[in-house]
């Protein structure tokens, strides 16, 4: 008897939905083992996390606060990954969104009329994020530099530069030594919708819809899809590959930059320590779990945010480390990657010895075994 993987006749829609859902539960089970080993009751822990994330209007709004940057950076990462461009620099692009937004809010406010200040902050952050993603994109598209290294390393440049700014030249002179800039003028504040959850939520929803439209209904999106799926075919079809990779990555970085600008303008209203929390890295999990599709990114981002907020809650209420949430985030990815195999393949068990062979290689295998 042998077990073989067999290619399916078509993509399994069930598997596409079931795999992420089952992966989530598999992660919960694996997490339970870890919790048990550290002496905690997994069920009460999970219940506490659930309450912490969704139990009240306030906790739900806090989940949204963390979901907003995950949605936008997740969408940004998904755009790049669709092009098979491994942009792991969303964190750096997010930080640049914050730096540029802060620059506009603090240092350009006297030149910009109040009603235009907030749009300028958001726009400035978006452009900065786009430029930061454009660097590895240009390097990759025109001279073939590996994008994983460049985009990752540019994160450190961005993060450390932001720290330099709010520890050094941009530090609030009246901040009692606290590492952070001065508070933005009120015209640069992003309105809040529910407690601390801000307008960035609306940006994320609009961005998801726009991306869906670009990839499914525009000529440009059609070209991007072809490039992502098969570069040789794209070249053959007369599509300009390098230019389109750069354009797509500008879009990718713009979304992360938008996330960063919204974060400073909507939440802290200043650039301060703790601004870079690793949303840009979690965005990679968000994008994969949503199978790079724009609308699902929104839901997955909420789920991931709930794990973060829930993790914080169990720290407060049960004395467990808040990293429980991070551990679960990480654990989800493994069953996801393994499970994605089943959308295109299925398991088949072969009992008889003389099955008709499928490929020459299998034929040899079975003969060697007999």
């Amino acid at each position, binding site marked *: 008897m042998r077990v073989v993987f067999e290619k399916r006749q078509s993509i399994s829609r069930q598997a596409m939905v079931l795999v992420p859902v089952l992966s989530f539960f598999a992660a919960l089970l694996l997490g339970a083992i870890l919790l048990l080993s550290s002496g905690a009751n997994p069920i009460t822990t999970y219940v506490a996390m659930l309450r912490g994330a969704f139990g009240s209007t306030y906790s739900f709004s806090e989940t949204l606060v963390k979901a907003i940057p995950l949605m936008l950076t997740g969408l940004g990462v998904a755009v790049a990954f669709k092009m098979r461009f491994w942009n792991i620099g969303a964190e750096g692009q997010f930080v640049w969104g914050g730096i540029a937004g802060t620059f506009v809010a603090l240092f350009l406010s006297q030149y910009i009329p109040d009603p235009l200040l907030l749009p300028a902050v958001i726009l400035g952050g978006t452009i900065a994020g786009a430029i930061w993603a454009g660097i590895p994109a240009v390097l990759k598209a025109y001279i073939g530099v590996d994008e994983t290294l460049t985009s990752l390393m540019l994160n450190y440049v961005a993060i450390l530069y932001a720290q330099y700014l709010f520890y050094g030249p941009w530090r609030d002179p009246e901040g009692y030594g606290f590492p952070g800039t001065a508070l933005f003028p009120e015209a640069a504040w992003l309105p809040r919708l529910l407690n601390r959850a801000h307008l960035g939520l609306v940006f994320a929803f609009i961005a998801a819809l726009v991306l869906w439209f670009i990839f499914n*209904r*525009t*000529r440009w999106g059609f070209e991007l899809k072809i490039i992502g*799926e098969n570069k040789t075919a794209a070249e053959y079809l007369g599509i300009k590959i390098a230019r389109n990779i750069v354009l797509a990555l500008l879009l990718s970085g713009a979304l992360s930059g938008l996330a960063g600008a919204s974060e400073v303008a909507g939440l802290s209203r200043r650039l301060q320590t703790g601004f870079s929390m690793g949303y840009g890295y979690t965005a990679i999990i968000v994008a994969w779990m949503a199978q790079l599709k724009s609308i699902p990114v929104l839901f997955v981002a909420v789920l991931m945010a709930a794990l973060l907020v829930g993790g914080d809650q169990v720290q407060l209420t049960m004395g467990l480390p808040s990293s429980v949430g991070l551990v679960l985030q990480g654990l989800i990815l493994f069953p996801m990657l393994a499970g994605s195999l089943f959308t295109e393949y299925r398991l088949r068990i072969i009992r008889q010895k003389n099955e008709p062979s499928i490929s020459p290689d299998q034929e040899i295998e079975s*003969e060697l075994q007999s």
Partner: protein
Amino acid sequence: MDNQQLQVVLEMRGITKRFPGVLANDKVDLTLNAGEVLALLGENGAGKSTLMNVLIGLYRQDEGEIYLGGKRVEIHSPSDAADLGIGMVHQNFKLVRTMTVAENIILGLKDLPFIPKIQEVTKRIKALSDQYHLKVDPSAYIWQLSVGEQQRVEILKLIYRGASILILDEPTAVLTPQEAQELEHVLEILTSEGKSAIFITHKMEEVMAFSDRVLVLQQGKLIASRNTDETSPQELARLMVGREVLFRLDKEPCQPGDTVLELKDICAMDNRGLPALNDLSLEIKSGEILGIAGVAGNGQNHLAEVVTGLKKPSKGQVILNGKDVTQNSPLQMIQSGVSYIPADRIGMGAVGNMAVSENLSMKGYRKEPITRNGILQPKQITKFAKNLIELFRIATPTPATRIKFLSGGNIQKAILAREIDSCSGLMVAVYPSRGLDVGATESVRKMLLDQRQRGLAVLLISEDLDELLSISDRIAVLFDGRIMGVVPSEHVDSETLGLMMGGVPISALPDEAVS
């Protein structure tokens, strides 16, 4: 070689190998004598490589036996074969580029100590390379070596492991003429020591220069065995490709119009910087099919890529409808009405993960009605696809099915449908019916004839002489990036074509062959 003392070292008896739907080897017998160079000659798909893969244990024969020095052997894997003294140099070398020559040579040896004594290995390699004139620096890294040197490393590897039977798969395909001459010399030394070699080829001149004996395979069967000095390139050409043309499609007489495409003294380099096309000139008129005959790897793909703008020639001019388009991009060529059916359907012609309907609109998507102001019109895409699916009888469950789930023939029909629909001047078709069954092949050929009737110019690149003879109006033979000659297809026989495909220019042929 001394014919008086023939000593059989290897015998393959009645080897049969089936693949689903294909009989790759049909009761093939092969004997190899000590100190002999044996050539395996045949067209692509004749079963040469299958037979050799059986011998080195990559495939297992369905029927037949292998005897080595008179004793029956079972070869289950390449390492079994290596133990028996049989080794193969594959066409694509199996070397680790970031390791040195010495490291590559000992890589995978079974009795290697935990820490190999590299100095001893180096010494032995030096001795062997002197002995066999295989000059190579054992401490050089593979990436520093030319292709010819890499081939020497592969041969050294086999000798180092004590191989007495060397199999070379199209050894000169990647070599410069000088390197090929050196290889010939190496083979002489090897055989003078009683080692034997089998080499796979489809080049006549190579057979004549290198081998003592030649076996000709055709569609899996062994059809002839000749001593090289008792045969001629003419005879071998006829044996290799000389089956009767099976059918000729009814076609209207050719009524050529204006010149559509003109190539003037085109030169182009391949990826390694070696010349792939040499001073090639051609002309195609509207309403005409120009066939390009030749064994794969003689510049066909480069020719297609130069004509479609994917590759820039290093010299010469491409003239389309009277305009110089040498520097045009692929997009500009598409927009000037050039269509291209590429040899690599899955890798280049189609996007597997996208729908049949999307694949069908990949040429028309830039224009109305498929897009309006940059916005795709899904209804139009489906309508357009349904129309082509019906017209070209593409068997697909729905237009939304991902194209990779279709059969090879239907993928090809879809590509053809898209290219024919978008074509308005020149159609470049490379191996359009390769791998298709008889029915699909016939419909592909009919479609190409229809395009000629429509007044398009068709550049048909094919390895299939039946195809070329049955649908093209003129045939140009490509060898080593050069045109050996252009002949009208009614007045040519396959022997003449075979000779030209083997590198004999038309000027060297007797007059009656091309009258």
